[in-house]
């Protein structure tokens, strides 16, 4: 397999409702990524896009609908979808185009516009459930996260205060992100604990709300990096992905085994056998505050039930020993599902190339890991990147 580098990244604002069309959002992110790589569309061999269910936009064949904005016309183009995992998975799809030798430069563009769906995109999620077993009970998607959070808290004896610390950390980190929707420099643990209960134990400030946005990265082969003397690049050293059964009522939700399997696949490729020593920072998927903790354990960066202590001890702060979500994460920057690529893969690129500005981790970081999660609490994908 050939070495693959991320050589550029771009993203739009994340907002509850943006006035731009999906196509315009894609264009803005893609143009930004190409500009940061110093390339033009003519240099791009293939385009990969990622986006969540078509029903948010109310337009089927969404990948074709925003294709022009992705720069995909008259090129090999594909859209990938792995639920919430799309935010990291589309980069893996881009990676295999380059690693295989099929393409030298690939543009990856992710878009989400959830605000089109009125009055609330939640009603679209009703259609992901098993029609016979689950749907007669009229489930709300937040229920399953509440159930997973409750199981995780109860089995390990974790207090809500310790979970709320993640929301506080990430919303404060997001103050330094120019695209952030939900930054709050003054938020406290008490604010999270006193916020409205949605589906206990999930409260308003435990969750990242729907959002609009787009993000893009440019991937290139080692040969392109050398030939063009590209200095700002971060190497993709490992990729992994894994899915467990959709029959979620047959699984113990306390530990995301599928994330651990995806991580082991990525770590093996990246020659990482002691992740806690060899990984300098992480951007795990944090659509809920407890998910950052759950995923740190799945990524084998904390013992089972041990991630809350890392947060409480300040280890995961931007200036801690293992900075986690230095971008501000989904909790702080926003959650336009697939477009979270900008704060996951994008953040790894910016941190590893020293371009994260006010978000830059104050000590030197050489290796980062990012991960996304989706479908019915069953899908994990992991990317390891090196400076």
């Amino acid at each position: 397999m050939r070495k693959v580098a991320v050589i550029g990244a771009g993203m739009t604002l994340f907002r509850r409702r943006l006035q731009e069309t999906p196509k315009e959002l894609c264009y803005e992110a893609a143009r930004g990524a190409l500009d940061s790589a110093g390339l033009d569309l003519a240099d791009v061999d293939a385009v990969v896009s990622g986006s969540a269910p078509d029903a948010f936009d109310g337009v089927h064949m969404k990948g074709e609908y925003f294709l022009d904005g992705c720069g995909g016309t008259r090129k090999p183009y594909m859209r990938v979808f792995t639920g919430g995992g799309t935010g990291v998975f589309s980069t893996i799809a881009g990676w295999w185009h380059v690693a295989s030798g099929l393409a030298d430069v690939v543009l990856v563009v992710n878009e989400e516009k959830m605000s089109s769906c009125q009055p609330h995109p939640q009603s679209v999620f009703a259609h992901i459930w098993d029609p016979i077993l689950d749907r007669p009970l009229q489930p709300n998607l937040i229920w399953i996260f509440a159930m997973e959070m409750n199981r995780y808290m109860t089995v390990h004896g974790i207090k809500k205060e310790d979970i709320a610390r993640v929301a506080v950390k990430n919303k404060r980190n997001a103050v330094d992100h120019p695209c952030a929707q939900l930054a709050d420099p003054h938020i406290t643990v008490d604010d999270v604990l006193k916020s409205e209960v949605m589906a206990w134990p999930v409260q308003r400030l435990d969750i990242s709300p729907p959002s609009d946005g787009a993000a893009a990265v440019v991937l290139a082969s080692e040969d392109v990096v050398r030939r063009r003397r590209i200095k700002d690049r971060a190497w993709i050293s490992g990729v992994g992905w894994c899915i467990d059964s959709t029959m979620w009522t047959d699984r113990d939700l306390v530990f995301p085994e599928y994330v651990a399997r995806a991580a082991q696949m990525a770590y093996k490729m990246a020659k990482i056998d002691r992740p806690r020593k060899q990984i300098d920072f992480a951007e795990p998927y944090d659509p809920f505050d407890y998910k950052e903790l759950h995923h740190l354990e799945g990524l084998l960066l904390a013992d089972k039930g041990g991630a809350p202590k890392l947060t409480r001890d300040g280890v995961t702060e931007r200036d801690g020993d293992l900075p986690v979500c230095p971008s501000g994460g989904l909790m702080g920057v926003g959650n336009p599902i697939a477009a979270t690529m900008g704060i996951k893969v994008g953040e790894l690129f910016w941190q590893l190339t020293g371009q994260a500005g006010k978000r830059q981790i104050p000590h030197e970081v050489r290796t980062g890991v990012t991960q996304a999660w989706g479908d019915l609490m069953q899908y994990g994908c992991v990317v390891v990147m090196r400076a």
Partner: protein
Amino acid sequence: MYGGKVTQTRFRPDARYAWSAGEAMSRFLEELQNGRLIARTCAACERVLFPPRMFCELCFRPTDAWTHVLDTGTIETFSVSYLDTNAKRIAVPILVGVVSLDGASPRMGMMHYFGEMTKDDIRIGMRVKAVWRPPEERRGSVLDIAYFRPLREGEG
């Protein structure tokens, strides 16, 4: 216009769905009408698979036999929801969660509602029993169980 602010299109597609229940779930729904829960066994991994399925997804071979499981079980996890299916707020919370059923392999169960308990009583590990709708009201649906209630002393 939506809320007087944005252009909105109302579109109600004429697309109704008639899902095939399949062999395993058809039998499962039929047994619900009889007030019973049914599973399938896999002789290779020796699991009692609930919900029932005609092939084992791990052994990747046909399952072997039908077996009834009990309508009692344990709350594996739950939520107290103040949101309905469309994320609208509701005053009286819905108690909902996963029940692992006695007689099935460990942690195998189903999502359902809980009743005859308050949000302060419910806890993980609580023993519960199905409350069935009267036979004439059963329709071959998971809603043939109204909810799960706490197991009383001397039961199960």
